[in-house]
């Protein structure tokens, strides 16, 4: 068995993946939802890159190159669709992202090079998100309004009304997007976001997203909560909401498009719940083994694209090989880069202050310490 357990067990062979049509289609259909082939292939390629990076990351956590892995295999359709639709930039005219730790696909789709993810996983000083201080997937990108991801569950939902308040005052189409899992909605901070986003006369452009993988580490949501859908929580606040199958990239893309459009134009909140799979468990602390009972959004999309004649197996293989090679190269390069030194422990604690006589530049240890 490979380190990531990434090859499927011996299931009986499925139907042959081959092109059933002769003419390439212009759109991909899933039920009533439609997406252009060009867009579908863009999403597909980013999903492949995301999966390759996550699988390489899991290997790193097991090889000793890294200590800990957490991420979002199974959530690629949602993550990539979000990353590609974000209005990316700095300041309140652009979208603010309050993410959690399963959003590699969002950042990759936004244009983050793989190596920036790996630098954090490998705890390098070159890690632009945290200088080797934080877990992997805990991104912080000021230039793109990606505020620091924390491991503290759901606190991002308490912060989201703040960025959205500034955006409401600023005008324009920038929105605040806050993402968390379904287990975290039991925290009061989820209710804080619902409440503060709907203060009468000061409703806020917040897109609240819950990616529902049905588990909080080991606990089945159905064993601790009576709700059938998280979106039911929106009703008392008069917030518009939708639940979407996060394993259907076409539906997920369109649901995000509708939700973002609503927040941008109406300057009001929206709650979107995406039902997703958790393909490698909670994190490396639970082994990160592949769970073959979960629906694989990437395999499903691949089959859909092949069935509808948008791509062929050879091209898929090429894309996957390229993505794996990209991830491998990122790991090789990142591992050559410097680690933090003992002199870096205090750095970036305080911003330079004109009114602080002890720490005018940065923290330097206890006051007056030699």
């Amino acid at each position: 068995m490979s380190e990531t357990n990434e090859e499927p067990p011996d299931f009986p062979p499925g139907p042959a993946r081959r092109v059933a049509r002769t003419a390439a289609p212009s759109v991909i259909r899933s039920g009533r939802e439609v997406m252009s082939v060009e867009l579908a292939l863009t999403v597909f390629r980013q999903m492949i890159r995301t999966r390759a990076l996550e699988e390489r990351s899991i290997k790193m956590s097991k090889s000793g190159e890294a200590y800990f892995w957490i991420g979002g295999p199974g959530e690629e359709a949602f993550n990539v669709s979000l990353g590609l639709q974000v209005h990316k930039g700095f300041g309140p005219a652009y979208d603010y992202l309050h993410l959690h730790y399963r959003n590699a696909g969002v950042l990759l789709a936004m244009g983050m090079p793989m190596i920036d993810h790996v630098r954090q996983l490998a705890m390098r000083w070159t890690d632009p998100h945290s200088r080797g201080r934080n877990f992997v997937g805990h991104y912080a990108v000021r230039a793109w309004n990606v505020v620091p991801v924390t491991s503290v569950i759901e606190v991002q939902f308490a912060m989201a009304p703040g960025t959205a308040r500034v955006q409401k005052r600023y005008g324009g189409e920038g929105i605040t997007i806050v993402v968390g899992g379904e287990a975290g909605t039991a925290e009061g901070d989820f209710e804080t976001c619902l409440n503060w986003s709907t203060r009468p006369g000061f409703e806020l452009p917040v897109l609240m997203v819950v990616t529902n993988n049905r588990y909080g580490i080991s606990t089945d949501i159905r064993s601790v909560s009576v709700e059938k859908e998280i979106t039911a929580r929106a009703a008392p606040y008069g917030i518009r909401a939708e639940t979407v199958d996060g394993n259907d990239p076409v539906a997920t893309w369109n649901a995000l498009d509708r939700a973002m459009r609503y927040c941008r134009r109406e300057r009001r909140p929206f709650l979107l719940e995406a039902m997703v799979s958790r393909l490698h468990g909670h994190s490396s602390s639970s082994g990160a083994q592949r769970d073959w009972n979960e629906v694989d959004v990437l395999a499903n999309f691949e089959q859909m694209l092949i069935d509808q004649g948008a791509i062929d197996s050879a091209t898929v293989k090429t894309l996957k090989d390229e993505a794996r090679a990209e991830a491998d190269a990122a790991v090789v390069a990142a591992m050559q880069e410097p680690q933090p030194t003992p002199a870096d422990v205090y750095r970036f604690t305080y911003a330079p202050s004109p009114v602080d006589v002890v720490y005018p530049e940065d923290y330097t240890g206890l006051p007056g310490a030699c």
Partner: protein
Amino acid sequence: MASIAQAVRMALHYGETYLGVTDIFGEDVGPPLGGVFTVTQGLKTAWNTPLDERGIIGTAMGIAYAGGRPVCEIQFCDYALNVMDLLQVAGNQRWASGGEFDLPIVVMTPTGAGIRGSIYHSHSFESWASRLAGWKIVCPSNALDAYGLMIAAIKDPNPVFVLLPKALLRARDDRRIPGEPDDPDELSRMIDAPVGDRSNWQPQWPELQEYVVPIGKADLVREGADGTVICYGRLVPLCTQAADELARDHGHRFDVIDLRSIFPYDWPLISESVRKTGRVLIVNEDTEVTNFGEHLLRRVIDEHFYDLLVRPRTLLGKHVPGIGMNQVYETNSVPQLGDIRAALRELATDPA
């Protein structure tokens, strides 16, 4: 002649007029009340929040991320305890993001005993706050310092806690805040909201000027060679009074240090004083187990062991679950004037 409440209000007005403060908010902070201690009356950017401390701190962080300059209030510091994790996150944002995100937020909250606040309105917060690395913590003992420290807190691009000693919020300073009218009654007419209907009331702000008390700079409020007293906030007036009485009655003279900044604290001033007197008393009203004063005691022992003439002392609040409503509880668990005077006398007369 302003009170601390008026001084903070004027500093906030100065902040929203000249220093870019965008939001002043919290429970009952906006009109009509303007704060349960009247600290935010008449401010143009003040608004009321849901009764939700987590939302207050989280929203302050979000506003700061997006380029705003928030000042928020936790109505009583006792209620900051349900948001400790967010406060910790706020303190680490710059460090955790490798310098990507500054977090210029100011959190003000009334702290300490002395207003018969019973079990849930009498806590002290400085020892809790001192464990929140990445924050700065200031605590004024008079109106002029309150004005200068609040302006410093607003100007500092890092998270700053302004702990307001609630028993002193009505205490008047005999010094004037720059721009404040000479007559305290005139100031009151200008900036205190009327009792009753105030829907049409507008404050008339004096022409205030900038005044900064630097963060990390203590104030030596009395000088003497017979001992060093380290205090802050509510107990500064009591320590000063005790020192004055002992000077008058017994000729003992003390260095009384008003820290003003809990973190970073003014170690050079403390160090110099301890070297001079060899006798140290650390006084505060927070509970005594894992008290911030114990940290200062540790540094005094570590760095001045051979400068000490007598054992260094602390006079702290008792380690009890709360401060009871009947005054017997408070007077027997929180340092009082008599306790401070006795401790100072003992400090000065202990044979070396």
